[in-house]
């Protein structure tokens, strides 16, 4: 059975054509970084203005990045806290995605900050009333938790490495200690995730006069939390299938299709809460407004939540790799849309005379961050024991 297959480094050629494309995109981003930080600043690199202080670097790189990294804590909760041993095989890839996801959220934030060298200030200048402070603090703590959770993977890799005897000895010593205390970090990871995933939804509530009523609800933080629960497993499914496709191994449907049942539940829950909220606040009147916001909301709810929900209802779809992939992808894109809608499309500054369209540099950095993340992911699974798959072990033996 698949749960007894131990994770191994993927034994595949690292430099493929896809990898070269990623390297090019990452290099473009590096050039823009030099341009933005050393020469032109935010004014030259972005199309931000006085009315639109937040662009795609915040709405996509940071807010969406945090949401899409939710696969880490949802999987850890399922596999380690609820002890669903069946899912251990996906826990490590999900952990790696979360770790890289949050790391790149931090890098993306650096691009956006006017004084990036002050990024550590929240650690000394506590402001408990600031919603952003809570988000920031939890993210920083969680990032450290993720690194600690990842440490055993590194140790496993080097504990028998004869080239570095000192490191190997240290790893051998550290592994059992980590094993004993890890449960504390797993729980902390879940608590911290719930806290900041929800607080992130509270950010725009402070600007009710600018925040479109379709999204502006006092339970916005609950909706963010529920959508984080919802998107966690679809991200794992998406990524697991995509990895399988890249490395030409079979997708592990015996893990992924039962996983999608949880997604069915969370998608249904999110849909129900979201519709109830809309009915109670009466915000459905804006649906026929004919504005960009009304269309954006409709598309987000229809294709990002309702359609995948009804798709997942069918066992046949849950068991068919291609269709399950599509359903998972729709949910992921739906959450991406939701975050962009909340932080960008739904933000309507009263005195704006020009609207914000991201500059070519902003777009290139956003793409470059994604590409670099994939590059690092590929490098790590190639050299560290992250992925467990029967095919890989067979090949090794």
């Amino acid at each position, binding site marked *: 059975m698949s749960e007894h297959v131990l994770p191994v480094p993927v034994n595949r050629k690292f430099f493929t054509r896809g990898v070269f494309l990623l390297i090019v995109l990452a290099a473009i981003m590096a050039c823009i970084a030099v341009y933005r930080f050393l020469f032109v*600043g935010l004014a030259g690199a972005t199309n931000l203005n*006085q009315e639109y202080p937040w662009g795609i670097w915040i709405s996509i790189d940071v807010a969406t990045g945090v949401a899409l990294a939710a696969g880490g804590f949802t999987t850890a909760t399922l596999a380690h806290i609820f002890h669903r041993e069946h899912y251990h095989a996906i826990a490590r890839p999900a952990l790696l995605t979360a770790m890289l996801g949050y790391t790149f959220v931090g890098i993306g934030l650096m691009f956006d900050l006017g*004084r990036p060298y002050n990024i550590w200030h929240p650690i*000394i200048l506590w402001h408990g009333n600031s919603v952003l402070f809570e988000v920031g603090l939890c993210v920083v703590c969680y990032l450290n938790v993720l690194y600690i959770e990842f440490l055993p993977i590194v140790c496993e890799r080097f504990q028998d490495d004869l080239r570095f005897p000192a490191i190997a000895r240290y790893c051998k010593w550290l592994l059992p200690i*980590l094993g004993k205390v890890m449960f504390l970090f797993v*729980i902390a990871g879940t608590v911290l995730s719930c806290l900041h995933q929800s*607080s992130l939804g*509270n950010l725009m509530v402070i*600007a009710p006069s600018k925040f479109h009523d379709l999204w502006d609800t006092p339970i916005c933080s609950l909706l963010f939390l529920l959508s984080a629960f919802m998107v966690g497993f679809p991200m794992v499914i998406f990524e697991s299938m995509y990895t399988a496709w890249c490395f030409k191994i079979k997708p592990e449907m015996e893990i992924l299709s039962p996983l999608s049942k949880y997604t069915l539940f969370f998608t249904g829950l999110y849909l129900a809460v979201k519709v109830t909220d809309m009915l109670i606040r009466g915000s459905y009147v804006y649906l026929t407004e004919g504005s960009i916001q009304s269309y954006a909301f409709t598309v987000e709810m229809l294709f990002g939540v309702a359609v995948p929900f009804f798709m997942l209802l069918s066992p046949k779809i849950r068991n068919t790799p291609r269709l399950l992939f599509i359903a998972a992808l729709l949910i992921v894109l739906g959450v991406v849309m939701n975050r962009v809608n909340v932080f960008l499309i739904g933000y309507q500054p009263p*005195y704006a005379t020009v609207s914000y369209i991201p500059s070519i540099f902003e777009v290139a950095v956003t793409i470059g961050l994604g590409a670099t993340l994939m590059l690092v992911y590929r490098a790590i699974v190639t050299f560290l024991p992250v992925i467990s798959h029967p095919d890989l072990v067979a090949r090794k033996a």
Partner: protein
Amino acid sequence: MGVSRREFLRVVGASGVAGSVVGVATSSAEGSGAVVPSDDLMGVLVDVPKCIGCRRCEFACKEAAMQASAARGETKEAERFKPDAIEAFEDKSVFDDEGLRRPEPHCYTKINRFPNPEQPDKPFFTKVNCLHCVDPACLSACIVKAFRKLDDGPVIYDAWKCMGCRYCMVACPFGIPQYEYDNLWTPQVRKCTLCADEGNPNKGKVPACIKICPAEVMTYAKRSDLLAVAHEKIRNEPDVYQDHVYGEHEVGGTSWLYLLPHQYSIEELGFLELDSKAPPRLTEAIQHGVFMKFFPPAAWFALLGSMMWVSRPGADQDGEPTGEGHH
């Protein structure tokens, strides 16, 4: 700068774990309940129909900001605030050419013109700047508490704390804070300080714009007294003023109060229709109420820990790092 450095050290000193916990506990206590304007709160009453649109306040504001920057040793910044000769501000064409004029990073206040339907030769002029909210959203939002509200009202900003996330700009209901996007290394959030920033020659005195105004449009006094005066004026001259003191209730009240001509609606004069509730009351209630009081993180931790224990498999041979299974 001296004050900032002292404060910096004090904050750093208090930033041990214990200090931080206490800090959060006290600030969450502050966070609950509505903010009532204190009796010491100063305010500015703007008698909009009296304004003649001479734009001298724009000049005085830039001059004060320039002097304050120079006093703080920010020479380059001072240069950017430096106003043209006062005569240049007589130029009325800006009202036609610039649309609705909004504050800029180096121009904290702007005057706008609106035609008077009854007396075409006496148009109305409104002044826009930070309203110095009683319960400021910018202050509540800031991740590092770079904004302070002084006891007598001014909301001022400590640049050294700021990390430039611009959440304050998102939060301000009036779209006031302006960002120096073109400053490569040390961009600041810029807005009216009510002349209470470090180095400002008018600090502790009447703000520059109010002092220079030849038509005595603005009165600087206790906010509670100003409200009484405003309502009396409305009662005595209903054919001049509309029956609404802008800033009395908007977003929980602001230190700046406006008497507006009755010929226009609030929005036609470039002001915003806003709720009387201060936005931070809701976000802070959600944050402290839900996360700290009803469902504190420690309780989550205990709950998840017990779930982990209850659902543990009988024997954990995998050696998976699930801890409690080993007991």
